């Protein structure tokens, strides 16, 4: 069932977003593993279109919030307003009460707003002045940020980056894909062309199936060795946290389900490790002076090449 649905989602979203199969896969894995996604890329690489088409394909409610320096927590999570008719305060829900929230340019919002959002991501509920409301199921934040902006931005601190299950780097497309994008844009693109291929009930069943995907003790021991290796790596100040490793397991389980398996292999772990772990690794600033790579992807690849998986 998982592989079949994965193929349908990729095909449907692919109608409007060309050449982003890997990104669609990661969004789906993350949704099934109850995680959140950080999309990093320069403007104009179809981040928003992808999020919108993905929600449409799964029949989920989608809301977009453009983060700006003057945005307030109230603008996202909602707050109490005075109802003149009833003469009492009532809670007005913010745009966070949706299935998929696109937090566009999250690093433009001040830390107070970022932390209000990230708290909701963790707890899956909103609390304002003692009033608590659960967020709907499923709930996923797709945040975007531009890696080249330095002016007027508030970079997400490590603790907040850790809340995102995966970080997907949107690179420029290849020449062939670019030609495909141009061809696709010769006629107008309408997200409504994307058909809904999954009901909320089916999605709920898939999420439960992810929780049933088996992870052997040996694979867990392998993960622990990988975690230890990141923490002992000389060129890293901060290795993978236990939360990072938990999210890596969940993501690998979702990946296994989407290829039609009921167990996790070391290949599943390695195939998602880059997107799950690299944004949580902090490079030793002195590493470059020692001639060590400052690229977290290269460091992680070297670690995974070194740590022996169960075979």
């Amino acid at each position, binding site marked *: 069932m998982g592989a079949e649905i994965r193929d349908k989602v990729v095909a449907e979203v692919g109608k409007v977003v060309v050449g982003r199969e890997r990104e669609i896969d990661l969004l789906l894995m993350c949704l099934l593993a109850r995680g959140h996604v950080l999309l990093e890329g320069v403007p104009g690489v179809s981040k928003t279109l992808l999020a919108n088409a993905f929600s449409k394909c799964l029949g989920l409610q989608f809301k977009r919030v453009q983060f700006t320096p003057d945005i307030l927590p109230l603008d996202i999570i909602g707050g109490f307003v005075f109802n003149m008719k009833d003469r009492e305060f009532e809670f007005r829900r913010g745009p966070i009460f949706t299935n998929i929230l696109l937090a566009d340019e999250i690093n433009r919002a001040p830390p107070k707003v970022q932390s209000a959002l990230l708290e909701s991501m963790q707890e899956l509920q909103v609390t304002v002045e003692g009033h608590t409301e659960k967020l709907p199921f499923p709930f996923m934040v797709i945040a975007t940020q531009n890696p080249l902006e330095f002016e007027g931005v508030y970079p997400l601190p490590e603790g907040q980056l850790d809340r995102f299950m995966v970080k997907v780097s949107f690179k420029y497309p290849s020449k062939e894909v670019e030609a495909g994008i141009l061809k696709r844009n010769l006629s107008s693109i309408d997200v409504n062309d994307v058909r809904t291929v999954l009901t909320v009930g089916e999605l709920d069943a898939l999420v439960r199936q992810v929780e049933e995907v088996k992870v*052997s003790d040996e694979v867990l021991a392998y993960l622990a060795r990988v975690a230890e290796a990141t923490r002992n790596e000389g060129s890293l100040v901060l290795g993978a946290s236990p939360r990072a490793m938990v999210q890596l397991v969940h993501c690998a389980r979702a990946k296994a389900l989407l290829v039609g398996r009921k167990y996790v292999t070391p290949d599943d772990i390695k195939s998602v490790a880059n997107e799950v772990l690299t944004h949580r690794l902090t490079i030793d600033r002195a590493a470059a002076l020692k001639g060590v790579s400052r690229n977290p992807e290269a460091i992680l690849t070297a670690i995974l*090449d*070194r*740590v022996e998986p169960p075979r």
Partner: protein
Amino acid sequence: MVSNQLILGALLALNIALYLPLVFSALRRRKHKVNASNLADAFNGLEMALKEAVPDLPAGFTWEEAIARLRSSGVKTEGMDFALKSYEEYRYGGSPLPDLDFREVVKVANMLGGITTGKSGGASLGR
């Protein structure tokens, strides 16, 4: 004038020099021959053979990576796809060890044993 005995001795030495590496190579092949009694043994043998035949394969290699590497080097591995899937189900999924035909796995392992080389040189499976 060179005596016949000297010529014979030289020819004998030349023969030894020529054939000794071949004898060693044949012995090595025999040493690396995988004898498996079940699927798990066959994959253990393949793992050993891979480590020796492809010295630049990283210690953290997975089955998928190893198979991809063999395929890119022209080794035919399609015949062991089902065996690998079944082995992974047993290894990672907790299924009982299947009673399957593992001859293809042993064949690939032995074939790798045949082209085993050290890091120092000779033929090896390139990337």
